[in-house]
Structure formats: C-alpha cells, structure tokens
C-alpha cells in the first residue's frame, strides 16, 4: 500500500515526513476531523502492514509517537465522553459482564446498513459500502491479535480459539480477510490491502482508529475485547441480511460467500467473545469490567455513526 492522500495540514506534514524521514519542522495542528482521522489511521498503519513509500523505522520514531499520542488522547477522550453521556458507569464488581454485553447490544437502536442492503440498496450503494468496509475487512481481526499476550490464561485461550477461526483454521484460503479480498475481485473492485482508504469517510476512519487504539494499547485490553464481543454479537443476523441483499442484486458468488461464512462463524464467536473472553477477563481482573463495556459501547456507537453518515449521504442523493 502507498501512503494515503493528505486531507489537511497535519496529514500533509505527516505524509511528507514519512516519505522523507530527515524532514525537519514541527507537526501543525489538524485542521479538520478528516485530517485528524486520516493522520491517526496512517500512524497506526505503521504497526500493521506499513506503506511501501514510507520509512519502516517511522513506527518507533519518537516525534511521530508524540503526534500519535496526542491524536490518540483526543480520540479516547471523545469516545469516553460519548460513553459517559449515555450512562453512569456501572459499579464494576456488581456487573455480570456477559449479561451486560447482551443488554448493551439489545439496547442498540442504531440504523442498520444490512437492513438497507437487504431491502432497498442499489448496486452502487452496495459497491460504495463494500469499498468503505474494505478498510477494516482487509485487515479483519488484526487489531485483536495484538491483545493476545496481554490476557490472563482463560481469556487468552478463548481469544486464540476465535482468532484461529478468523484466520482460516490454518487454511489460508479461508482467512476471513482473504475471503473478503476474493469477494471484492468478484464484484469488480480492487482487492489489494488498503485499496480504498482514500475513499473512507471520517466516521469510518474513526471506527477503525478506535479498534486499532484499543488493540495497540495494553492499558485498553478490556476495551479491545469488549469491542470485539460487540462486533461479533452484531454480525450473524446482519451478515444474513447482507447475503439476501447481495443475492437480490445479482452479486451472489464470493462476496455473498464471505458474508455467508460470517452467519455461522459469528454465531459461534459471539459466545466465545462474551463469555469465555470478556467474562473470564472480568473474573480475573475485575477492574476491566467497566472497560469491557466501554469498548462494546464504542463499537456499537461508532457503527451507528458510520451507518447514519452513509444513509444520510444516500438520502441526500435521491
């Protein structure tokens, strides 16, 4: 993947700095949410697959880490403020975490992109949604992989069971991100890693940045597994709707097969995530209970904001 297109002063500085490590001059402030989001996305990506036109040593460049920390602090503050606005945090010791996760998911009333795809979306809507989704699905499960060494015994074993399935149970053909890449090709879209980052709306970048933030910080391990649980718990039924919508539009084939795989897989994963990962982590580290719920809320809230943005833009085009 090549460096993304800048979206403002900060990302312009960052892209120049990554392409030419010796460049001097302090980072300017971000001049928009878009600029801030693509900058943090780019800095996080240095810890995933990186960029062919960036210096690999930039991942641990102290100055860039300082910029990343400031952007992460602003993002985390924003996410925690949204969580705090919804509800007073529950008393951690009293929380039955799997049940509380179920309640959070049941109370989620965000708009459903899968519903729209199943019933009303046209081909262009679906292709645009797939381009947006590709930002995550081409690195599916990678943020959660960073969490493995940070967990106690039971949660670690359960997360590995889930990740093993995400990564194809040892068969590269069944790796979920690979299935999505095959699906993109089949519907005539580009399948290479990071192909559509330049098209990603800020809500989508923020959703991805939140997942990476949680995955990359040991301190946020509870939020990371809570985020994972909410993701898995809201995947099975929507994936089935995606299959129905893709079939309706004649986009059956590998992309429908990708979503079809998630109907079954995530019906299993949601229980592994809620009970065996989050439940046991909260047992072993009770101070993580509230963090798990914060992470789960953030997953649902970010998806709702993304869905609202996409549906609103499509409504405006009508």
């Amino acid at each position, binding site marked *: 993947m090549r460096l993304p297109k800048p979206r403002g002063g900060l990302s312009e500085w960052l892209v120049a700095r990554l392409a030419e490590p010796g460049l001097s001059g302090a980072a300017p402030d971000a001049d928009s949410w878009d600029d801030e989001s693509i900058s943090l996305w780019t800095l996080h990506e240095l810890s995933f697959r990186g960029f062919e036109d960036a210096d690999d040593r930039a991942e641990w460049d102290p100055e860039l880490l300082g910029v990343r920390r400031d952007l992460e602090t602003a993002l985390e503050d924003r996410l925690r403020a949204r969580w705090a606005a919804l509800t007073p945090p529950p008393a951690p010791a009293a929380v039955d975490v799997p049940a509380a996760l179920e309640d959070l998911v049941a109370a989620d009333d965000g708009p459903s992109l899968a519903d729209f795809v199943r019933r009303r979306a046209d081909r262009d809507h679906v292709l645009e949604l797939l381009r947006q989704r590709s930002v995550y699905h081409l690195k599916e499960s990678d943020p959660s992989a960073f969490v493995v060494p940070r967990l106690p015994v039971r949660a670690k074993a359960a997360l590995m069971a889930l990740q093993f399935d995400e990564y194809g149970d040892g068969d590269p053909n069944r790796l979920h991100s690979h299935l999505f890449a095959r699906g993109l090709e089949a519907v005539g879209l580009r399948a290479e890693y990071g192909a559509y980052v330049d098209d990603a709306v800020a809500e989508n970048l923020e959703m991805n940045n939140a997942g990476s933030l949680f995955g990359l910080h040991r301190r946020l391990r509870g939020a990371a597994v809570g985020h994972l649980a909410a993701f898995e718990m809201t995947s099975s039924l929507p994936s*089935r709707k995606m299959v129905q919508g893709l079939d309706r539009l004649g986009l059956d084939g590998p992309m429908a097969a990708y979503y079809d795989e998630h109907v079954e897989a*995530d*019906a*299993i994963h949601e229980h592994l995530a809620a009970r065996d990962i989050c439940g046991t982590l909260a047992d072993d580290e009770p101070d993580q209970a509230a963090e798990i719920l914060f992470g789960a809320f953030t997953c649902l809230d970010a998806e709702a904001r993304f869905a609202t943005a996409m549906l609103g833009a499509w409504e405006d085009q009508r």
Partner: protein
Amino acid sequence: MTDRDFDHPDFDHPDVVLVPYGPMLLRGAESVQDLEGTVHAVDRPVVALCRCEKSSRLPWCDGTHKVIPR
C-alpha cells in the same frame, strides 16, 4: 517441576456448552447428523448447533433465536 495432573485440570473446558436461550456449543466434533439424517462435516474447532429450530441453516445456529421472544 512436578508432573502435570491431566485428570484434574485447573480450568473447566467442557466439550459441550448449552448457552441460555441460545445454541449448543460443541467442541472437537468431526461430523454432525441433522434431524433429517444428513451428516455434515465439521471444519471448525467449535460449532454452534441450533436449539430453537428456527435457524435458516440447520443444524447450525444463525443467531435467529435472538429475535424470538423469550
């Protein structure tokens, strides 16, 4: 270092788990026979078997139980 006592493991790790109002999780199976007698190969370490009988892809759970009133 003492020998590990595999008859008395430190953690519960059952092969079958019944999820309240949800599926039956089955670990380590190689095949599953459905109600019609068809045998399905299992290619995952854990599978979720439908218990509400409303799944669109029996014998596997597809999450439909969540939209059934309890």
